[in-house]
C-alpha cells in the first residue's frame, strides 16, 4: 500500500487532534458526562496505532482486513455517540425527557429503509464484490448519520431547545465529517476506483475538520450563566438619581 506525504500529513493531523481531544476530555473531567464519546475517541487513537503498525510490518491484505474490521466497530460506536447526543439534548427537559431514545429509534429506522433503497439502486461500481459492499455500507452509514443529525438540529430548532456548548460541538463535528464524507463516497461510487486517492484525502481532511471542531468546543470556556433581568432601565435611572442625591447630602 503506497501512501504519499499528503496522505500521511492528513492522517497524522487528524490523530494528533484526536489525542488532544482525549486529553481535554480527561483534563476537564468530561468522561462521566460523555462516556460513549470518550470511548469513541480512545478507540480511534488505539485503532490508528494498530493500523499504523500493521501497515508498516504486515501485508496489504492484513492491513485491508484490519482496517475494515475495526471500521465496523467505529461505525457502531459512531451511532452510539449520536444516540448519546440525542439523550443529552432531551434529558434536561422533563416534558420530553423520554423522547430522545424513541425519536432516535424511529428516525434511525426510517433512514435505514432509505439507505437500503439507495444501496439497491446503486450505480454499477467498477470494483470487486467486497469493496463494492464496503462502499455501499459506508454510504448508507453516512446517509443515516447525516439524517439523524439533521433531524436533531431541525427538531431542536422547532422546539427551541438550547444545546450545551460541548454537546453542540460534538454534534457539529460529527455532522461536518458525515456530510463531507457522504459527498465524497457518493462521487467515489459514481466515478470508480480512479477516485480512490482523492476520496481517501477528502475523507481524512473531513475527519480532521470534525475533530478540530470537537477540540475547539471542548476547549472553549463554559459560557457565563445569563440570568433574566427584570430591572427596567427607567428604574435604574431612578435608583441612580436617588443615589446621587444621597451622595450630594
Amino acid at each position: 500500500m503506497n501512501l504519499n506525504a499528503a496522505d500521511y500529513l492528513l492522517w497524522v493531523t487528524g490523530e494528533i487532534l484526536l489525542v488532544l481531544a482525549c486529553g481535554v476530555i480527561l483534563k476537564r473531567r468530561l468522561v462521566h458526562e460523555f462516556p460513549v464519546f470518550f470511548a469513541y475517541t480512545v478507540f480511534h487513537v488505539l485503532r490508528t496505532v494498530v493500523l499504523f503498525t500493521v501497515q508498516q510490518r504486515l501485508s496489504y491484505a492484513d492491513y485491508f482486513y484490519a482496517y475494515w474490521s475495526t471500521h465496523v466497530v467505529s461505525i457502531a460506536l459512531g451511532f452510539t455517540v449520536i444516540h448519546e447526543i440525542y439523550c443529552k439534548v432531551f434529558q434536561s427537559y422533563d416534558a420530553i425527557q423520554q423522547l430522545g431514545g424513541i425519536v432516535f429509534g424511529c428516525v434511525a429506522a426510517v433512514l435505514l429503509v432509505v439507505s437500503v433503497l439507495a444501496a439497491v439502486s446503486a450505480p454499477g461500481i467498477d470494483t470487486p464484490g467486497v469493496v463494492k459492499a464496503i462502499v455501499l455500507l459506508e454510504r448508507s452509514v453516512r446517509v443515516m448519520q447525516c439524517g439523524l443529525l439533521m433531524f436533531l438540529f431541525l427538531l431542536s430548532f422547532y422546539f427551541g431547545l438550547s444545546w450545551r456548548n460541548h454537546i453542540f460541538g460534538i454534534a457539529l463535528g460529527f455532522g461536518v465529517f458525515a456530510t463531507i464524507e457522504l459527498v465524497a463516497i457518493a462521487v467515489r461510487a459514481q466515478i470508480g476506483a480512479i477516485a480512490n486517492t482523492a476520496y481517501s484525502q477528502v475523507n481524512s481532511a473531513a475527519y480532521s475538520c470534525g475533530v478540530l471542531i470537537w477540540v475547539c468546543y471542548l476547549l472553549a470556556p463554559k459560557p457565563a450563566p445569563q440570568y433574566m433581568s427584570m430591572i427596567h432601565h427607567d428604574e435604574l435611572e431612578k435608583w441612580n438619581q436617588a443615589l446621587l442625591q444621597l451622595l450630594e447630602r
Partner: protein
Amino acid sequence: MITTTLLIVFAVCGLLVLVWAFRWRRHPMPDFQGLEDHTRPVDLAAFRNLIDPAEEDYLRQHLPAGKFRALQRDRMRAALEYVRRTAYNGAILLRVGEAARRNPNPEVAAAARELVNSALRLRMNAMLATVVLYGRIVMPEARISVGRVTDIYENVTQGLARLSRLQDPAHAARVSAAI
C-alpha cells in the same frame, strides 16, 4: 447518476442545516423588558370560540351545507393563524424560561423549569393542531378535535405570570399582558 445527485443534494442540505444551526445558536436571548416586542398577541377567547365544537354544531345546524363549508374553512384558517401565534410565543417563552432556569434562586429556577415544560408541551400540541387544522380546511365537515392548545397556552401564560411575580412583582401584570 440520479442516486449520486440525490445523495449530494442531501449532504449539501445537511451542511446548510449545520451552518444555520451554528448561526441560530449565536442569536441573543430575548429580554424580559422587550418581551412585548418579540411576542404576538393572542385573543384566547376568540381562539377558543373558533375551535369550540358546540359553536361548530350550531353553525352546522343553521347554515346550508355549502355556506357552512366555506365559513368553516375561513374559521379554520383563522384558528391556524392563532395556533401559529401561540407556537411562536411558546418558542420565545421557552427561551425566557431557559435563561431563568439558571437563576441561583431555587424558587425562580423551579418556576422557570415549569414554564419551559409548559412551553414545550405547547409547541408539541401546536404541531399536531397545525396538521389537524390543515386537514379540516381540506375536509371542513370532518369532526376532528384540535386538542388542548388553548388550555396549554393558558398554562404557559400562568407560568410566565408566576415567574415574573417572583422576579419583579411590580411589573408582573405588564409582562403577562405581553402575550
